[in-house]
């Protein structure tokens, strides 16, 4: 991550290798391994601890992405090249290893208490990916948004940061921003 250009693939390979090690560990410690990543949800929680935990996780992720955006903007404004390389690598990995797996479910969009958060996070992710110069991944995120929230474009979302807009308006703004890069 610190040497993203030349060492990205090496890091990826290491990650795969270490992931394999982790799997071995997990196999050894089976169900008591509380540090293992939770498996993807298939059911939609309607309340209780599961829902509140998931909500908490989404809220925290949304806040974290807002902080990342502020930091990225700051680095770009000051033209801090080496800082940008480090931080973009970090954000990229954060999105890939934490946010994407978390959003890899349709459950959020189907749960009224989570849908707004889910859509806002996806918008934030698309914006961050645009800043990371990953237009293809940004487009994938937008496509997922369109697919998941078809017919609900009037839903209010927390995007751009600090504002509330309809999803339709947000998508238009995002499209505009994506092309401006």
């Amino acid at each position, binding site marked *: 991550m610190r040497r993203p250009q030349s060492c990205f693939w090496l890091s990826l390979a290491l990650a795969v290798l270490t992931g394999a090690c982790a799997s071995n560990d997990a196999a050894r410690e089976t169900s008591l391994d509380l540090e293992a990543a939770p498996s993807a949800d298939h059911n939609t929680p309607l309340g209780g601890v599961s829902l509140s935990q998931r909500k908490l*996780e989404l809220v925290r992720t949304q806040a974290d992405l807002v*902080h990342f955006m*502020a930091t990225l903007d700051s680095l770009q404004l000051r033209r801090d090249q080496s800082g940008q390389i*480090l931080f973009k690598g970090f954000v990229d990995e954060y999105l890939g*290893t934490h946010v994407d797996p978390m959003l890899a479910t349709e459950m959020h969009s189907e749960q009224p208490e989570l849908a707004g958060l889910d859509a806002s996070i996806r918008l934030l992710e698309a914006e961050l990916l645009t800043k990371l110069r990953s237009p293809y991944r940004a487009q994938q995120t937008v496509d997922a948004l369109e697919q998941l929230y078809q017919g609900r474009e009037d839903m209010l979302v927390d995007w751009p940061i600090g504002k509330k807009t309809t999803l339709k308006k947000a998508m238009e703004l995002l499209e505009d921003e994506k092309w401006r890069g």
Partner: protein
Amino acid sequence: MKTLIARLSLLLLLLGGPAAAQDAASWDPYLDYAYVFSSAEQPALRARLEQYAGEAGVPLDRHIAQRLMPLASQNGPEPEERVRRRAIAHLLLYLADGKSESLEESVEAANALKPYLGRHESRYWHHYVLAHAALERGRPYDFVGNVLDLWLGAVVPLETPYETLKALSLSESPNSGFASSLPFLYENVARLVLIRSQQMGVDRGLDPLGGLVRLLADHRVGAHPDVIPVSASSRDYLDRIVERLDGPESDAGSLTFTLALFEASKLHDNARGLIATQGLSGETVKAIRVAGAAYRTAADRADTVQGEAAVQTRVLRQLGEIYAAKQRLKMDPEIETPFTIEDAIGVYTKLAEAEAEPDGWQELGFRERDGYVVATRGLWEEIQEATLNAADYYLSRGVELPHLADDYSRNAVRLYTRYLSLFQKHALSEGAAGVPDSAYYAAHEAARGVGDAFLLYASHPTPEEVDLGIRRYRSALRIFPFDRTLWSSLTAALEKQGRESEYMGLVRPAAEAATRSRVVNRWVETGEADAERLASLQRAFADSLAVMYLGFADASGVGELERSLAALRTERQGAMGKLQALRRRLGGQAEPVPAAFDPDAGSRAGPLDAAETAEAQRELAEASALLERLDQQIEARSRTLPIYTATLASDGLGGELRARRDHPLHGLLRRLYHEERASMGDPS
């Protein structure tokens, strides 16, 4: 149980009290829970390790030699726990004693953990050790990389499990594993980034960690008081850093800059404390120099005008404090500073010019316009305070060294004039966002200062200087007419030049402007702050006799004026008696005074002849004229004196305005100034 021990250890460690470790016959539990105490300050950590050594029956270095040394390769792969404990043990020795060999051993062990990085605990210690090594070697890029990796690899994956465990009240369960360490990991990362990096002198390249610092401040550090009491956490420190990181004193969100400025501010506070306790001693001067150098470092780290302004604002505060201390303590030690008021004015100009561009403030590094306005006004206020303090210092030096009074007065005038130029350049538009309300009173002070410098302090001012001084007094009157003492200063200056007869002509415009001002009238009518004091002055300005009193009467002479009024009344009584006597004489009435006591009784007894009648009539006319004149004087004085006396209640208004930049009257002065400019035909 282990968790409980660890918590107790931390608490005792933080409280500096004796440890109460239980069940500890080996170093292993202490090493496994080292994340609880590894961030302690060096002396506390050293004491802790000594205590643990006593409890374990063996010092840590010997424990490493006996139990944790690398195994020979033929013995197969070394157990993960053993490698991790070795890395931790060496790190603790390094942190306690500062020996770089210990760190190298720790790094070697941390690198040997690479095959085990799938386990969060090993990943945490791996990056934590390498981050310390990067600090030791002065490599910010590696440091940042390791901290970010630590966060991604060890903190992020634990957050959800920790919350789940906590929700189920299982976070203290023995089976909760490393997940329960999360609050300590937050604390350790915060201390590593904010404190340790600064102790190790890493003052560049930390900006990508700004993101993590914001995350730590967002419901992480200090959010688990059941595990780490808020008072024992770095919560307050973190909050202050984040407040600055996102506030007007930032450099577009640069953590490197924020930490550098924060360090400089701490050194500044130290110097300020020494000024208060030791005056301008050698130690104080040294502390001032150290703070100045730290501010220089912060300025070097600033990439944006926002950052430059933040440094200049604080530096000028220090400059003003130094001049105030020199004046108060009557000392003039050699103090060097890498900053000047001119530098600050240069930065201010950049800030002010951005006002002309739409969203120009964003280009300067500000995230919000409010922050831009606060920073710009803050810098102006420091420029004005430093200027006024420096000029005051020169004037006071002139008093102490009369043979140099002319030189010092002219130095002061240069400072005042520089401020007035700044004021003329930026404050002529009422809506100038970057000009604080207090700038107007400061302009009054500067204008008055020029007058005082030439007319009160200088020994031999030139005629041109005297003329300039009088003109500046008039300017000062126009900006703030409510300082009673200025009116008498002007007459004193005019008297020196034999021009006191010009007084009324010079002050009338200011008096009339203050009387007819709609903003002042509205202020008084609505009973705003100090309305009564202003009203009393307005009444005086509307009365030409009171204006004369303001110029020529000394405040301490009110009693004298009242006595002279009483004397006039006595004189009037005498004149009245004489008048009545003359009237009776001319009317042929008998004198009420017994003839035996009146030497003229014989001559008054009979009717007056023609000559006597003419003389009596002349005396009567004179007495009538005198009485009329006395009546006029008494009427005028008895009407004006209370008006003038009432103005004395306004004394101290100027001092209050100088002491309080947020005094409500500052806003009135701003409006008054622009109202008058508009009335003079200036559309701006």
